[in-house]
């Protein structure tokens, strides 16, 4: 066609990138003091607005449903100058490797993926913590194939649990907004220096609208300082000269066993050290409703919303049910759960996956610290929604002498 619209946009010489017009504020001011206005937007839009205020230097990703909605919006942010550099990578191994590379340059790095994409990028992802690369991975949860499906289901999070990443799990659009911004700040703390993943349940959060209270868009978080880091940037500006030789990393066969062991210990110790920042920036690593209830729901992600409704409807029936919202899966709020559950009689763990990875976490961390019976559910998966009635039915069953879900075999 003669009137072809193919073009590569050249920015005019006097163009001022959007983020150059924003004012840097401290994370404390941004998260706790800055005035907020409420808007009604999708989770993907909430993520976009969080990215806009996060002073992001580079965003690299590969399209996959339901993540693509967010990362194409990141493209518009790049066009407006709120992100310094941006490209669509070849696939997820390429994406996760490249974002690890950009983080090593000492710049603030963002990527995002969903279910099968996470699986594809897993080799690179699981090597980020050991390389001590601060970056943020947004994970819009989706069923893992096969059979092929694009439905929401957070089974993929079970693969991240023991990879050394810090894992936040957002309940709704507001969490997706707040956790994303906080994730950058947590990730880049010197005593943390680790990648942070922010997971939300796909579609339920990403494509649905919710109320989000946002700070003004002319504010941004402080930039990353690549040298203020447990392992400084690989920019050839830091002694010792032989980074690979003198520091105990990247030596393969030459690394001693105890050095590798202590390196692993240090990674997982660093995830624990992140807890104080999570407590500060997210207003606590757990949220507890009705702490004195005998029956407690423990949930993370979108299952928290359904659980809240179950707590409310139970109270209308005159039954007190408690709820613990778990905001971080790594570090796991072990001490907080032990304290909150020491006098609880019964625990239910509603989840959006078949495996029950949160149930397993709850069981292994509470073992020996509570006399409560811990029910393996309720669970939905494969893309199902969880009706509040389902939780209410389980609560009702739990009040019977011998609930079926405590019978053997289950």
């Amino acid at each position: 066609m003669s009137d072809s619209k193919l073009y590569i946009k050249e920015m005019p010489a006097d163009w001022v990138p959007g983020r150059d017009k924003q004012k840097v504020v401290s994370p404390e001011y941004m998260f706790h003091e800055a005035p907020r206005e409420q808007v009604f937007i999708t989770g993907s839009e909430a993520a976009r607005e969080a990215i806009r205020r996060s002073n992001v230097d580079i965003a690299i990703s590969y399209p996959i449903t339901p993540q693509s909605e967010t990362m194409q919006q990141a493209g518009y942010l790049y066009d407006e100058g709120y992100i310094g550099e941006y490209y669509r990578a070849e696939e997820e191994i390429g994406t996760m490797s490249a974002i690890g590379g950009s983080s090593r340059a000492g710049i603030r790095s963002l990527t995002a993926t969903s279910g099968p994409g996470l699986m594809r990028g897993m080799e690179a992802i699981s090597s980020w913590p050991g390389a001590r690369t601060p970056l943020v991975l947004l994970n819009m949860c989706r069923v893992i194939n096969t059979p092929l499906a694009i439905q929401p289901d957070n089974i993929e999070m079970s693969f991240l649990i023991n990879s050394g990443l810090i894992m936040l799990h957002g309940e709704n659009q507001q969490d997706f907004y707040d956790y994303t911004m906080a994730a950058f700040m947590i990730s880049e703390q010197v005593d943390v220096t680790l990648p942070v993943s922010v997971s939300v349940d796909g579609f339920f959060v990403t494509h649905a609208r919710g109320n989000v209270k946002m700070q003004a868009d002319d504010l941004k978080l402080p930039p990353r300082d690549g040298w203020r880091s447990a392992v400084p940037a690989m920019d050839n500006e830091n002694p010792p000269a032989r980074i690979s030789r003198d520091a105990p990393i990247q030596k393969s066969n030459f690394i001693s066993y105890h050095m590798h062991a202590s390196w692993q210990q240090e990674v997982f110790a660093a995830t624990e050290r992140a807890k104080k920042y999570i407590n500060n920036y997210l207003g606590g690593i757990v949220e507890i409703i009705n702490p004195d209830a005998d029956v407690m729901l423990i949930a993370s992600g979108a299952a928290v919303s359904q659980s809240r409704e179950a707590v409310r409807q139970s109270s209308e029936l005159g039954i007190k049910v408690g709820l613990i919202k778990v905001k971080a899966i790594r570090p796991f709020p072990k001490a907080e759960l032990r304290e909150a559950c020491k006098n609880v009689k019964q625990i239910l763990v509603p989840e959006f996956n078949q495996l029950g990875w949160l149930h397993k976490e709850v069981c292994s961390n509470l073992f020996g610290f509570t006399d409560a019976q811990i029910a393996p559910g309720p669970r939905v998966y494969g893309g199902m929604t969880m009706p509040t009635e389902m939780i209410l039915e389980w609560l009702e069953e739990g009040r019977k002498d011998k609930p079926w879900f405590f019978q053997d075999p289950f």
Partner: protein
Amino acid sequence: MAHDNLTPSPGYLEWLPIEYQDLVNLGPYNREKKPKVTDMGKFKEIIEEHPMCAGCAMTLFIRLAMIAFPNPEHTIIVGTAGCGRLAISQASIPFIYGNYGDTNSVASGLKRGLDQKYPNQPKDVVVMAGDGGLIDIGFQGLMHSWFRQERFTTIMLDNEVYGNTGGQESGMTAQGQVLKMAPRGKVTGKIDAMSLAKVAGVDYIARIAPTNPSRVARTIRRAVMIAREVGPTYIQAYTSCNIEYAIPTGDVMQDAFDMEKERYGFEEVISDKAKAYLDEIEKKPAKKAKK
């Protein structure tokens, strides 16, 4: 690593390992004239003691490359599993040793990151990986970094075998070669990576055997400089594996000469843009015009 970054505070130097002291005092940095490959043995090289096999041609090539880097104090090397990394990691150049076959993806993110962080200080990113790491497991990342016109140099240390895992055939192994995992001889031919680079629009492509140190140095320098200013560059270097190919240690260089003659002759493919740039930087001082 600029020389002043490398130099410790007064009083500390004597407590550092002798090889570090040598690097500060006798290294290639901060000199009026950068040492050349012909100066080998007369200065402290960037690469330290290494654990490579006796007579390894790959090691020679890596040493030459490191001498040739136009700006080693602002160079970062990206590698992957394979023999090369055993030597590369002993150099006083930051070495990112990532996952299998991730080099060109890592280098893409790294280079863009460094460009953003240091807009006024060119940082040279060089991928140095084996034939298997690049053409087999790293193929997708390699090709896409070229298609995206990423500005870094890719050097394939082509020993035509998976040396580090014990001698299995690779995509770059010649047809008919008997190796592990090719017990009846490799069925298919050597992948034509040179042509792939041409199709992908790489700005500087060179095939070379380490027979002529000065030519190796010039090729490396050209590739790094063009990657800095023009676009992607690729060097495919024959670096024989004398162990898996059973080349007697004393015959390693003869093998390189023979291979060069037979099927690994020096070849350079330079894009017009790169040629114009080379003309600019390699221009000899004007001689007196003859009448």
